């Protein structure tokens, strides 16, 4: 009987070793998703007998679609900014070893700051009576960044925090090999810009893709920053879900669950798309 890598015995042992980590995740996810689906369909009501109903899904589809579109906009924009800024930070750290160390340390220090603190700080900085407005001295002309229609303050908060995360993931994945490859590229005639675009960027693509998926899914489901820094209406999915879940109207619970499940579905779709892209990126290598 074969005992090499990939043999049934080895695979079975690998599965056994993974079970302690995987089982709690599956149990929590399974229970919570099942409960959410049942509650959204009226089969697990807070009070009263179960009664199958699609009202939570079909009753206010317009608002649900608007919330989904808004969440996608915030998550996609924040992800694009985070990935671009994060890659630039990583490239800077690699290109400038001394100053880069300081930038890397600042990035690392950014990550443990909770989003709710970060959102509060961004609010104090960018609100229409905030630090920046007072510094620039333009009370009338200062744009509506907090609570404005483009969710700029919330996206800024995400981009600030998540770009540091992206930079550290990229640095961790390529820092060892990229220096020598850039030296080789330089002796082959590549300028500094060409080295970044033709060597560093392709090498960073797998880690950028992974971190982009993580940032997208996180910002899609994150509540604090959009609740603190966004307008009251329209609402992104997590804000709508939390508001409906905490409503005094217990009949709103199924809608809260339907909203949360849409968020989960969009996140799962993003993860699947990310895996496909990642496979393709790795296929290049």
């Amino acid at each position, binding site marked *: 009987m074969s005992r090499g890598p990939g043999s049934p015995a080895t695979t079975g042992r690998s599965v056994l070793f993974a079970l302690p980590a995987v089982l709690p995740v599956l149990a929590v996810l399974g229970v919570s998703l099942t409960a959410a689906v049942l509650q959204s369909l009226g089969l697990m009501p807070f009070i009263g007998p179960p009664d199958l109903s699609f009202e939570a899904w079909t009753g206010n589809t317009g608002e649900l679609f608007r919330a989904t579109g808004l969440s996608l906009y915030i998550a996609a924009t924040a992800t694009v900014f985070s990935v671009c800024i994060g890659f630039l930070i990583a490239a800077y750290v690699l290109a400038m070893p001394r100053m880069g160390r300081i930038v890397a340390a600042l990035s690392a220090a950014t990550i443990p700051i909770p989003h709710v603190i970060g959102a509060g700080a961004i609010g104090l900085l960018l609100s229409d009576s905030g630090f920046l407005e007072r510094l620039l001295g333009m009370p009338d002309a200062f744009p509506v960044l907090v609570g404005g229609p483009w969710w700029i303050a919330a996206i800024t908060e995400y981009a600030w925090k998540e770009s540091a995360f992206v930079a550290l993931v990229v640095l961790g994945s390529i820092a060892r090999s990229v220096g*020598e490859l850039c*030296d*080789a590229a*330089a*002796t*082959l005639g*590549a*300028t500094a810009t060409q080295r970044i675009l033709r060597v560093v960027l392709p*090498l960073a693509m797998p880690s950028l893709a992974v971190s982009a998926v993580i940032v997208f899914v996180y910002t899609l489901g994150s509540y604090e920053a959009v609740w603190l820094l966004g307008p009251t209406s329209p609402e992104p999915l997590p804000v709508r879900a939390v508001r409906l879940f905490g409503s005094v109207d217990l009949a709103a619970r199924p809608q809260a669950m339907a909203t949360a499940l849409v968020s989960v579905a969009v996140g799962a779709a993003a993860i699947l798309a990310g895996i496909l892209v990642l496979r393709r990126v790795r296929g290049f*290598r």
Partner: protein
Amino acid sequence: MSSRLEFRGLSRAFGQAEVLHEVSLTVEPSRCVALLGASGSGKSTLLRIAAGLDDPSSGQVLVDGSDLDGVPSEERGLALVFQKPLLFPHLNVVDNVAFSARMTGQSRKAARRHAMAYLELVHLSDLARRSAGCLSGGQEQRVALARALARNPRILLLDEPFSSLDSRLRDDMYSLVEDIRAELAPTIVLVTHDRREASILADSIAVLDEGRILQHGPVAQLHYQPATLAVNRILGGLNALSGRVTGGIHQSVFGRVPVQPGMVDGPAFLVMRQEAIRIVVTGEGTAVGSVTGLKSLGAHTLVRTEVTGDHGPSGTLTIDVAGEPDVTMGQVVGLKPVNDSGWAVTR
């Protein structure tokens, strides 16, 4: 494609540690010079400075008389093949070789056409579409060599590119370098710690030790006429007998051996390569030695002898004998220089 490379008074220090000290060396167009030295002798630092990947503390690098100070690596027109192949993992074989052409703005099609010529030169055109990660060690170094040549460099710098290959693959690579020299005649600076590799590939060898060039000369000269005991040791010489030179004759336990003209009278070491001594019948040689060790090198054997005589303290002489020598441990044998002359150094 060939240019003249000159290092003029080049020094490099990292903090208090001086890695290179006042190195001066000239490589004429189309010639191949090997920088031979042990690990840490500064030879790779010298190549990195030439390639523009490191800056000297003082001194100049000149190509065809032009000082390269301040010229970035990508504008120097020099190509460097590293110890590791360093192929770009996101590109296939042909696109790795086409990399330099793409950097100059050539279209993908034109760059690939240009690259194919160099892949044919290294006999790897069949693997053009293969991923860089799916090559053997020897194939990777061939691709790295083709990639460097495809840049049409003025000077090709080789930083121990074959050190990780097995002996058979190395011999293949030596043949390949000979083919490339015959076809393209590039100026080559080869860094190596392998004296055999240096002797096979280079026209001349510069011996580097602790950041200083001890001697630069043709391959045979360095082997048989070393400037110092250190050069003799680095080139694999096993024999150095202390004695005295008087009137052009070195006297030691090895007897009276004529040495090079111009040697000043006084204490000196006789350096005789192990290949330049013969074992003869006792009485026919200049000295007599007792066999104290036999070490097989495969097709050759090193015979270690303890030599005693009237002209100096006893010493050890090692003789390289083809095949299996007809001697036994403890046997007393006669020893004689092959050319009836030797080479003396004072330090």
